[in-house]
């Protein structure tokens, strides 16, 4: 159970701080199904929420969990579920539903090794593509990858803000190492967090249309069920009123809206760390637990005379496209360590300039990528640069 006492330095886990982040953001409904390595989140909330006027329910599976969270969200409650790989796969139909019906909801997916039951107690980062593209159809969503216990708090608070503001499902993706790691956290952040409350319709019920808002960076209002605004919600293609439609123009508007409302705000989602990048000859692109060892490797490489730098996305979706294009413009040597077979390495290829040399480090054995592993790869890449530049 999360033991944060709110005030000083405490030793807490990533899962603890996901709980604290959700509560600080105003969580009042949680539905979930037990799965390692996320279960501590449910266990903590089962004890905390009932005492705070909130609601905790353990559902019969993950499909039901996300369904219940979406239902509760429609009543105006900030709602969340937490799971890991197999459960995240089961939730995909409802992630698409939340995207299509535009209902705010937060999912914490603690990444373990996959596929299938895979490695229940070990880390992986192989759900990053699923976090963007897991459900059928075209939609846009947001996903965040914390690299520290404190960042579990910050990303969870942010996930709620984005879910509530943009009426989208948002996933927080701590990997197992980050979720189970304990480190010092200054818990004053808990009191300082500023929860974002969803925008309320500025119109009376007779004039309210749930899907006719102007797309903007400010987000979109949504009415609560049971407060006089009687509207219809469906996963079918719908018009501005929310009712199903067969009109191609309306269908197109519906499908583009859920994409454009995220695209238009892409820069607002950009959250990255740039560490020693200014003069870097070797750019390491890493996220989650791997970014921690990457940072250590960067410092050690610099001490050894190789100018390395780290580019770390906290938001992985929507991908920080325009910033990445800038950062990668001058990059000639890029190293991408990941606990998967190269998922984000494939993504960043869109933003690299021609002739850029990319080296991947991929582990699928559930073990962490060590600083030494990154340093060795960086040194090899560095050497290759010299060989190539003499051509």
């Amino acid at each position, binding site marked *: 159970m999360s033991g944060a006492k709110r005030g000083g330095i405490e030793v807490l886990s990533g899962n603890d701080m996901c709980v604290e982040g959700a509560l600080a953001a105003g969580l009042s*409904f949680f*539905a979930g199904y037990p799965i390692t390595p996320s279960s501590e989140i449910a266990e903590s909330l089962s*004890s905390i929420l*009932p*005492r*705070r*006027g909130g*609601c905790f*329910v353990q*559902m*019969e*599976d993950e*499909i*039901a*969990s996300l*369904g*219940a*969270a*979406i*239902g*509760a*969200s*429609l*009543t*105006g*409650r900030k*709602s969340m579920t937490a799971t890991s790989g197999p459960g995240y796969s089961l939730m995909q*139909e*409802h992630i698409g*539903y939340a995207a299509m019906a535009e209902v705010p909801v937060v999912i914490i997916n603690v990444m373990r090794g996959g596929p299938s039951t895979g490695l229940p107690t070990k880390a992986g980062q192989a759900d990053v593509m699923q976090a963007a593209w897991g459900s059928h159809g075209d939609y846009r969503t947001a996903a965040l990858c914390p690299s520290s216990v404190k960042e579990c708090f910050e990303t969870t608070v942010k996930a709620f803000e984005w879910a509530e503001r943009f009426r989208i499902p948002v996933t927080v993706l701590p990997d197992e190492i980050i979720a189970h790691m304990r480190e010092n956290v200054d818990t004053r952040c808990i009191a300082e967090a500023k929860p974002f409350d969803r925008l309320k319709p500025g119109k009376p019920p007779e004039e309210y249309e749930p899907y006719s808002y102007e797309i903007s960076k400010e987000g979109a209002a949504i009415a609560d*069920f*049971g*407060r*006089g605004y*009687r*509207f*219809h*919600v*469906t*996963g*079918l293609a719908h018009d501005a009123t929310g*009712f*199903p439609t067969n009109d191609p123009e309306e269908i197109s508007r519906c499908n583009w809206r859920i994409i454009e409302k995220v695209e238009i705000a892409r820069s607002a989602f950009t959250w990255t760390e740039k560490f020693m990048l200014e003069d870097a000859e070797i750019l390491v692109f890493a996220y989650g637990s791997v970014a921690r060892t990457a940072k250590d490797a960067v410092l050690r490489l610099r001490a050894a005379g190789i100018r390395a730098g780290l580019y770390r996305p906290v938001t992985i979706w929507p991908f920080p496209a325009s910033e990445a294009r800038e950062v990668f413009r001058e990059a000639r040597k890029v190293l991408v360590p990941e606990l998967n077979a190269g998922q984000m390495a494939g993504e960043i290829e869109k933003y690299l300039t021609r002739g850029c040399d990319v080296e991947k480090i991929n582990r699928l054995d559930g073990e962490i990528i060590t600083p030494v592993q990154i340093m060795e790869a960086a040194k090899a890449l560095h050497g290759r640069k010299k060989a190539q530049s003499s051509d």
Partner: protein
Amino acid sequence: MAGRRLSPAIDIEKYLRKRNLPHIWCAGCGNGIVLGALLRAIARSGFRQDDVAMVSGIGCSSRLPGYVDFNTLHTTHGRAIAFATGIKLGRPDMHVIVVSGDGDATAIGGNHFIHACRRNIGITAIIVNNYIYGMTGGQVSPTTPKGSRATTAPFGNAERPFDICLLAAAAGANFAARTTAFHADKLEDLIFKGLGRKGFSVIEAITPCPTCFGRRNQNPTGVDLMNLIREQSCGIEPGGKSEAPAGIRLGVFADRDEKEFTEIYAEMAAGAGR
């Protein structure tokens, strides 16, 4: 027909979203009869429209909430009860009604169905049992009678059907009752009863689907199926325990007054030092 219950004194038109009519249902379909009975039962219950949430899955019957002016939620196939559980826990004061087909409720959604019964959460579930998958064109369902034909049971269904009410009763629902679209007044009464219950209540309505079930099973029209339903209907003893002759067993299979889940939850939360 008993004049009282179908009396014109009950105005159900005020509940209809007329802009969405005509509905998508075939001539002879039983869904409209269920809709009428449900709206009359809601009117008799005196619920305010703002306080009613109606949730459905996917299927012909699940299109019902789109036609009525409440807080309405058309979800994914089989999962209506899961979403409804979130609504009821989020707003225990609301009247939460689920409308679900036999495939929706007992195939893909079977697990949610029995767990809602077990939790005894304050939701009224109307299960529209037409013995077939209507929306997708007539495939076999968990309630298709043994031997009946379906597009995926061309030689007759080899499987045994579920008895939805016995399932609900065994899983712990406070109220479980079955009637048919032919017995429209009885259907209204049972829904009214279910709406008045705390805890999970299940009202199973046997309905004609001439398009997908009747045509393949020697009863091509709604009238044919209505006659068949009438002929095959038989009663049960209170509690559903006695041996009734083969046929469609109509009656009340569970009628308990066990405490409702959100009430228990609120007490637990109060005890936990809220």
